[in-house]
């Protein structure tokens, strides 16, 4: 079985000329379908940079980066934009559009897929909002929703098109313990139901338990991967 994400010898640099700084050093990583991966580490460790590279939000510079069996290192902007449509994104700040209602925001996640009719877009958006527990708030504007509710709308938006990969950056950072917990549990449940892979960057220790694998990064290096540790453990024990 081909891994859903395959990173080989990935380096990344910021800046040019005198100010050029290497931020990722020889990253090697394989992620399989349906895994929930948490990337953690101190600030500046490069975990968010890695996330943006895997998500096609940044162009990879050197090495190999295969996502859904397609090489995306070295492709042009147009191709990268297309690649992004297969992913769902959840940001720390929900980034919902203030002039759109909850259901309109979720619908934006479907508009890019031309095979879905307008009617179907509305029914699916409605259904998604119900799943995240906001069925009664579909016509509310973001400024009438709480932080947790906004983040749930963002999740609905990210997942409504049933993406293969979900990328989340500190989704619980702005939320209290209960809301944060609810948010990641919804993500976990939907991921299992839709069979998608989740890549989550976080500092939040309260949610580490939902992960299948924890990847720890420091100073641009991949320090430890609990998957391989477990494997090593299994090998040692077995």
């Amino acid at each position, binding site marked *: 079985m081909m891994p859903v994400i395959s990173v080989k010898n990935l380096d990344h640099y910021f800046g040019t000329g005198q100010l050029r700084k290497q931020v990722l050093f020889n990253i090697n990583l394989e992620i399989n379908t349906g895994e929930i991966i948490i990337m953690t580490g101190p600030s500046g460790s490069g975990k*968010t940079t890695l996330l943006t590279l895997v998500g096609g939000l940044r162009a990879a510079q050197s090495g190999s980066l295969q996502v859904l069996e397609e090489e995306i290192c070295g492709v042009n902007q147009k191709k990268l934009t297309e690649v992004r449509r297969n992913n769902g994104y959840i940001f720390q700040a929900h*980034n919902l559009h*203030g*002039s*759109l209602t909850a259901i*309109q925001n979720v*619908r934006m996640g479907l*508009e*890019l897929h031309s095979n879905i*009719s307008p009617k179907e877009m509305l029914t699916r958006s409605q259904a998604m909002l119900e799943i995240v527990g906001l069925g009664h708030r579909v016509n509310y504007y973001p400024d009438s929703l709480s932080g947790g509710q906004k983040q749930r709308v963002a999740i609905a938006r990210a997942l409504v098109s049933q993406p293969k990969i979900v990328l989340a950056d500190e989704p619980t950072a702005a939320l209290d313990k209960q809301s944060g917990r609810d948010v990641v549990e919804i993500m976990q449940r939907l991921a299992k139901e839709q069979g998608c892979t989740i890549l989550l960057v976080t500092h939040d220790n309260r949610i580490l338990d939902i992960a299948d694998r924890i990847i720890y990064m420091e100073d641009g290096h991949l320090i430890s991967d609990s998957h391989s540790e477990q494997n090593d453990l299994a090998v040692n024990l077995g």
Partner: protein
Amino acid sequence: MIGLLSKLQRRTPLGWLQLSHHRSRLLVALSGIAFADVLIFMQLGFQNALYDSNTRLNRALLADIVLISPQSRNMQNLATFSRRRLFQAADVPGVKSATAMYIGLVTWKNPQTRRKTSMQAIGLNPEQPALDIPEVNQQLEQIKLPDDFIFDRASRGEYAEAIKQVDTGKAVTTEIDRLTITISGVFPLGASFGADGTLISSEDNFLRLFPRRRPGSIDLGLIKLQPGYDQKQAIADLKFHLPDDIKVLTKQEFVKFEEDYWKTESPIGFIFSLGVSMGFIVGVIIVYQVLSTDVNAHIKEYATFKAMGYRNFYLLGVIFEEAIILAVLGFIPGFVIPLGIYKLAVNATNLPIYMTAARALTVLSLTIIMCMLSGTIATQKLQSADPADMF
């Protein structure tokens, strides 16, 4: 076509939703556009009124075809040509009549204030109505009397008393150079840039004002065709029959000839075009301000859309959607308000200021271009919506 329609149906009207969500900003934008439109409408309205008033005399001529010297520049600067040309023209098939008109500028003493001022004098044939002004044609008998003139009641200057006197039947006398003339009647024409006022009389009376002019040299030849006769054919025949020292124009062309003079030789064209450009630029700046503020306010959301996989092209579409909505909505008050101002202006200036469908269409097009232009400049801001910065 169907594909485009269905595409539009699926699309969230993001531009409209963004604009309508911020009421006060929308109103500011619409006021700005309306203001620019009002400026442009007023400039065009006044310009048109001036061209109108300057061609009033030309349009009042009772003629199908007009003959002028090629040296003539406008109604107040006509070069003379030989009356013989009229006789030659009369021979051309289809011509019903060929009459002469003399026009010149005189200095007269205002009968009321006794101060000298310049006046346009017209000498016409009393046996043949040359102007489409009923009051003039009703008084053709009295202008046969020696030194008897009729006067434009809409002339510019202080004439109210004198006109009142003439209206009650009492004649008014005044001087032109050393000649004493009588004003026995009035008619309505209107002042223009070229002439503050007009006096009309017979050819003989006119020539007495200009002792150095030869009766054989006339300023305008007015040609009337047989009813129903093919105008194009007549013109071709006249051009063929008459030598090159005479210009043959249809009445329409003669009106345009006058208009073109004022467009190019006077500052009217330049001044009002400048005014229109200023109005346009004001509009562009205001709409640009609104659109770029709008883009800035939504940069994060746009970057999010880019992250989701929306192309730059889509976001450009949103901005242009906003530009068009602003243009159309802003045009509504921008059209209605000038209607009111025109009325006020007519009362204040006595100029013929009015709205035309062509002008409304022109300003609507300018408004749309104005908004699209602002939109194009505002899209520069979009470049900074970088999805990678969202994380």
